[in-house]
């Protein structure tokens, strides 16, 4: 039952103008790569915090703090590597 349905879904698109989610990749703007960090980070912070709270009402603030913590940490790491990159270019 499932296989013919999926084959039908796969058949619906090639050669046609209809783009089907998960069959045809979505167009991805070239400048979007770094910005895609933010929603993923939010999901990671949410799941991480959800595995530590007893009730959902504790979640929003804890998630926000974790989100900011990870984001600032990653920005510092990026800045550190950028400085290292500049130093390498300068001295080697």
């Amino acid at each position, binding site marked *: 039952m*499932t*296989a013919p349905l*999926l*084959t039908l*879904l*796969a*058949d619906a*698109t*090639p*050669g046609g103008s209809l783009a089907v*989610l*998960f*069959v*045809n*990749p*979505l167009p*991805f703007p*070239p400048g*979007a*790569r770094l910005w*895609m960090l933010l*929603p*993923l980070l*939010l*999901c*990671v912070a*949410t*799941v*991480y915090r*959800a*595995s*530590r*709270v*007893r*009730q*959902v009402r504790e*979640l929003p603030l804890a998630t926000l703090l974790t989100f900011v913590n990870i984001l600032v940490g990653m920005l510092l790491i990026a800045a550190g590597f950028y400085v290292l990159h500049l130093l390498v270019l300068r001295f080697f």
Partner: protein
Amino acid sequence: MPQQEPSTSRLVQVGLLAWLIPGAGHYAVGQKGLAAVFCVAITLPYATGLAIGGAKSFASPTANRWLFVAELPIGGYTLPAYLLSTALDRRIETRRQRGETVDLTEYVAYFPAADVAQIYLATAGLLNILAILDALSRAQYGEPTFHRDRRPAPEEPPAA
């Protein structure tokens, strides 16, 4: 008073539910709010990754074995995606046998979208491992994963 330990079959049931659908394990232990949170926060990156990359190569153990392994912790999503991937492989093969030229970019994303898709899919899979462990912890101890060590030790019975 220490709560009654759940049976092994109950824990297996919760684990399987959490493996099939993110949040389903939490729903089974009565944590409906957390179930919704886990479901959304894990389904979103998985669906985004698969939509950006396409199922053909991004849910295929032959095209990208280690990514597929990372996706396996979400069985209920990865199995249909794998079936779609094999259906697409068959479809492309049929088109080639008919003499058609198949442009693979119709089905497969390349750099930089491929990088983003892989990271999203792998992260979603790994996040569901955390969700499964948390569901099991809540089923067994009634506490989230990282609070088990804070539980007070059961009182010693008075010496006779």
